[in-house]
């Protein structure tokens, strides 16, 4: 088991290398003079030369790569021109906000998609099956920004149930002092229920927007997988042995059906990370995505590269986690060494 896990970890290393290589290429693929880009539109000739020296842009490509890797290793992702802060500082500060959105949406999507898919599979052609199919096909067609704006219009403007989409917290309230950086958790840890509710309220619409998007592939996979498992020979044996329905459903059908769903979660995470940028824009959410967007608009490139790298790392880590989880839950993995 440990061996298999170690192998998975090792298997992720080439991916890591690939990510670093591609982000390196992106930083050097800037049209014109990369140094001028990093120095910014307001950079003087000296500043440009300084940047050129620091980034080693007048050295050979392999040397540049080595400098790049060294910088990454020491946590140096460059400087943000607009905020003046080190990119890594900004990212660290803003990451909890993005993670809060992404993981909550994932949890919500899973908790809706799986029961929906299971019930749709058990009762084919019922209303719940049709609902599932509707969700599945419509969900992937809904552009995230459209969903977000539509939800804002309905729940904020028309119904007044949701707070205004201006970020993580009402500007009149002060955020809780950071322990995890996640406002809802921190406010709970400080025992401030009023603050907790305010923070949670702000989360509703952005999380819902992201959830709607990833609900579809998860529900589709659950339904398909469950249907295949329910008609499998071993479920027939379980029924022939007279096992109770709940036992068959959980111990026999569900555990087998969820295996491909676990891998789908990995794929879905990629969408979540990508679409979180859009959601952060629509709801003025101060996460890493909006950080990168602001920088992009200001022709400030270091934050964008840092952002791409961070997202790729997150994605790789999650996929690794899922791979390892799979090793643990499926005993047949040992077969395909």
């Amino acid at each position, binding site marked *: 088991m440990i061996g298999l896990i170690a192998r998975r970890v090792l298997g992720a290393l080439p991916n890591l290398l690939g990510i670093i290589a591609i982000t390196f290429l992106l930083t050097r693929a800037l049209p014109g003079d990369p140094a001028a880009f990093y120095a910014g539109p307001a950079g003087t000739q000296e500043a440009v030369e300084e940047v050129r020296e620091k980034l080693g842009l007048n050295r050979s490509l392999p040397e540049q790569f080595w400098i790049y890797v060294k910088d990454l290793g020491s946590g140096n992702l460059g400087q943000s021109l607009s905020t003046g802060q080190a990119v890594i500082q900004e990212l660290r500060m803003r990451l909890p906000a993005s993670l809060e959105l992404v993981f909550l949406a994932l949890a919500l999507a899973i908790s809706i998609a799986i029961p929906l898919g299971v019930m749709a599979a058990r009762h084919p052609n019922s209303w719940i099956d049709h609902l599932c199919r509707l969700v599945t096909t419509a969900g992937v067609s809904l552009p995230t*920004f459209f969903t977000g704006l*539509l939800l804002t219009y309905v729940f904020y403007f028309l119904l007044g149930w949701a707070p205004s989409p201006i970020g993580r917290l009402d500007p009149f309230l002060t955020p809780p002092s950071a322990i995890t950086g996640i406002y809802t958790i921190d406010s709970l840890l400080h025992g401030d229920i009023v603050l907790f509710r305010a923070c949670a309220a702000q989360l509703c619409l952005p999380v819902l927007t992201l959830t709607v998007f990833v609900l579809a592939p998860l529900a589709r996979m659950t339904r398909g997988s469950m249907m295949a498992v329910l008609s499998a020979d071993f479920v027939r044996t379980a029924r022939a042995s007279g096992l109770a329905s709940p036992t068959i459903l959980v111990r026999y059908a569900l555990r087998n059906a969820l295996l491909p769903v676990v891998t789908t979660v990995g794929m879905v995470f990629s969408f979540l990370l990508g679409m979180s*940028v859009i959601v952060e824009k629509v709801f003025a959410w101060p996460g890493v995505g909006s950080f990168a967007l602001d920088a992009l608009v200001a022709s400030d490139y270091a934050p964008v590269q840092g952002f791409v790298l961070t997202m790729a790392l997150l994605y790789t880590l999650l996929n690794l986690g899922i791979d390892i989880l799979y090793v643990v839950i499926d005993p047949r993995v040992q077969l395909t060494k």
Partner: protein
Amino acid sequence: MAVTTFWGQARATARENPFTLVAAAMFAGFLLIAIIGPWIVPFEPLASNAAQALTPPNAQHWFGTDSLGRDIYSRVVVATRVDLSIALSAVAFSFVVGGFLGAIAGFWGGRIEQTVMRLCDMVMSFPLFVLAMGIVAALGNSVFNIILATAIVNLPFYVRVARTEVNVRREAGFVEAARLSGNSDWRILLHHLIPNALPPMMVQVSLNMGWAILNAAGLSFIGLGVSPPQAEWGILVAEGASYIISGEWWVALFPGAVLMLAVFTFNFLGDGLRDLTDPRRRT
């Protein structure tokens, strides 16, 4: 009675899945609008009219007007051509380059296959939208670059499909026959294997178009690619975003709804095509 002809199967599929027929009709509709759109719009898409700013939908302006008084309906119609051509160009590029790379990888295997698949894995280790952002940021903010970025992040899908199809058929009888009659490897690849790999790739194209449209619109929404005042669905939604909270919903929601319909159309069409070519995979 067995249905064996293509059209017979198409009719059977349409009967079982009426949505496919609807989707095909809608596809034709979008195509038509993309082609003749600019000539049939009631208003000049760029013509602003401050007096008419932010009027809700009425008999004159079916989708209302935006903050500059421009007719939203006209802008949405005109944007059809922009979005569809961006998506189509990106998908065409991915299809050709990805298909070619995949075919080579599947045919010769070995080092070539390993390198190509490694490159694909590298692209796929990024969340695709994020990678597209990074590429556009690096290469510069232009329409060509969002097409290129969308194409690049889509490449791996076509590479994989092409590789699998060519791989599976590499040892097939007709390939052996072609080889024995003296055809060179390249000829076999170009004249025999690639044409046979096309049908599953075409299915991929339709499914992909929906995603490509979403991707392009998403990039425009966040400010990359097409720039105002040009009309493009993503930009139109972005222009209307700030008016949602004051209740002027039509500025953002009409373009968004049309965008959604377009993606919907391609997704359904893709599903229908897939059912047509591989009935085992019906959802």
